């Protein structure tokens, strides 16, 4: 059902059922504040998708359709094979690791429903420019990630109609909260066997540090340029994501520095290539962004 159809069906339900719910709602509209939401307004924000496919828009795509798109939009963080770059999430692999000491929880090894993948890509990805993909592109990248997990074939067309039928390997791996699962007892005296208390672990640094606190307290507040860089730029530039030059890489920076500070500032303020204006953080003042540029220049200029 399309999102519009979904909201319209609720309107239909409203008419059909009228006011119900025992013990829940009283008569609606006690206060009458706000405006009634129109179907069109709801359709613009109602982006959620459920395991039964409710909320999926019309459309479809194959992994083949998604391959180049994934490489362009996703691989810089998630890796070309979904293996994850740095601490960014691993998307593929990990089958049979859930009982191991270091489980690898991926789409294929852990996620119970394919709908979650479509919903999440659509609502939150790509990380720096969420909600920028078309519905077709969401189908395509969803299909490609399922393909990376060997869950569909390269030419399988994932569609509004069949997405809910994709069976995920770990679909039965979850159970509802059944806590409390630990029954401890309030013992007051001689609660352990004499001599049984041993240290089983402690932080590796603890013998070297005075109190641990000194080390923590010594953290300095970074200068503005560095702080802005951390906030707006480091997400890509620190790891070289999307070929973003890494500060301090003088070889990568020298041709850019040759363009002049003004050009670099202009690029940072207005965006360049896949780099969004102000690193995607429009709330930053121009002065703050310029400070970040100067911070990068100071790290990257040849001494």
């Amino acid at each position, binding site marked *: 059902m399309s999102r519009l159809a979904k909201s319209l069906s609720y309107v239909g339900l409203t008419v059909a059922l009228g006011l119900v719910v025992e013990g829940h709602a009283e008569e*609606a509209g006690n206060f009458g504040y706000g405006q009634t939401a129109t179907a069109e*307004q709801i359709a613009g924000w109602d982006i959620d998708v459920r395991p039964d496919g409710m909320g999926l828009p019309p459309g479809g795509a194959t992994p083949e359709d998604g391959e180049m798109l994934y490489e362009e939009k996703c691989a810089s963080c998630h890796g070309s094979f979904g293996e994850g770059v740095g601490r960014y999430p691993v998307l593929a692999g990990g089958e049979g690791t859930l009982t191991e000491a270091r*489980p690898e929880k991926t789409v294929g090894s852990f996620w119970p429903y394919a709908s979650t993948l479509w*919903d999440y890509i659509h609502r939150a990805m790509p990380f720096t420019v969420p909600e920028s993909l078309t519905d077709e592109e969401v189908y395509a990248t969803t299909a490609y990630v399922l393909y990376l997990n060997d869950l569909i074939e390269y030419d399988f067309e994932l569609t509004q109609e069949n997405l809910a039928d994709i069976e995920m390997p770990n679909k039965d791996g979850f159970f509802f909260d059944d806590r409390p699962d*630990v029954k401890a007892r309030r013992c007051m005296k001689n609660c352990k066997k004499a001599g049984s208390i*041993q240290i089983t672990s402690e932080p590796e640094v603890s013998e070297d540090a005075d109190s641990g606190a000194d080390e923590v307290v010594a953290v300095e507040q970074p200068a503005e340029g560095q702080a802005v860089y*951390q906030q707006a730029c480091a*997400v890509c530039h620190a790891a070289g994501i999307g070929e973003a030059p890494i500060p301090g890489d003088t070889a990568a920076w020298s041709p850019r520095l040759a363009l002049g500070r003004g050009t670099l500032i202009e690029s940072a303020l207005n965006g360049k290539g896949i780099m969004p204006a102000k690193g995607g*953080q429009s709330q930053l003042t121009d002065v703050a962004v310029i400070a970040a540029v100067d911070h990068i220049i100071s790290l990257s200029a040849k001494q």
Partner: protein
Amino acid sequence: MGKDNSSTAILLQAVAREGEKLQASERRNFLKQGLLLAGGALSGAAVPGTALAGDNNLPPNVPPWTKSLGSGVLTNPYGKPSPYESHIVRRNVPWLTADNIASISFTPLAELSGIITPSSLVFERYHAGVPAIDPAQHRLMIHGMVDRPIILSVDDLKRFPSTSMIRFIECPANGGMEWRAAQMDSLQFTHGMLSCCEWTGVLLSTLLQEVGIKKDAAWVLAEGADGSHMSRSIPMDKALDDALIVYAQNGEPLRPEQGYPIRLMNPGWEGNTSVKWLRRLEVGDEAWYHREETSKYTDLLADGRARKFSYVQECNSVVTFPCPEKPLTERGRYEVEGLAWSGEGKIKRVDVSFDGGMNWRPARLKGLVLPKALTRFGLEWDWDGGPAMIQSRAVDDTGYVQPTYTQLREARGSSSIYHKNAIQTWRLHDSGKVTNVQIS
């Protein structure tokens, strides 16, 4: 001194009279200079800020701030802490997350008193950074299985009857770094994804009554207006119980970091469900199983299965003094202090052990003891200068007793990441230093 005071008053009056003839900006400078002048007149010599570091200001000497005027009203229109407390800040663990946009910072619990966390020090958790929301252009949409889908402005929301409650908020990953082994030598990093504020807003039940929910409605999807569009499925029972749509914390408008202009607050539940920058509530008959309730925020057990919708933050406690940040300096009597909390209700009692859990002594609960709120406890203790293993163990009013690491791992293994509420052990060295250990 009486004479001095009256002459200072006359001088200030003269300064004020002169100031009235000036433009606003000039007046500020003029008044500032006048106050410095008055300070000089009063103290005879010292002007604030000119005392040399290392001057002895202790009795019998009198410090310069006692012999001069301080800064006037509106020097800090919104106020800020003393510069001597600048070390009391949120901190993060850089290697914990891939970047600092989708990341977390920790509350400095060792530095706080009572049970309220100042808004400025509430831990931060973002999945796409803090959005810069203009409240005039923010809306809350409530739709789905309702009789009348509505769109509320922030002002519309504030017209509804409001309520205030003091409740803790805790990230379920608090202490998650400690599941496998003791790792962080700092209370801020072992327990600092935890804060407690007075939250003011409108009960979600009031809004659901307003729109009218349909017969088979069982869940509410909450969604944020940030770039992550954070979304969680909330069971109707909770939505109609104590879930609150919050617009103020600790008496002031919600901070941007905490969801300005409005957020959801699910008291006692994992913080992630209290969706910030709330823009949409959809009523439905089934859960949505979104990323933050499947891939994340589920508890993987040793047998490979995972617990889902594990919302409640179970009873927990930690000693906040002494702790790694607050070592002991000399032998003698101390009040050992700590915090206890339970997502199920009130803290009933807290016991403290100094010998690694062999023997326990009941602590006093101090100040307010509120449901689903931080509760402070204290116990006087004579330190003989020897080593100790200090622990606290809380019991809530359901009778639930906080477990040990051994008990928690027996039940869950060590891959759960979330909901670690095991008894914390601080190892007190004979030097007074305190380190983080786990013990058998």
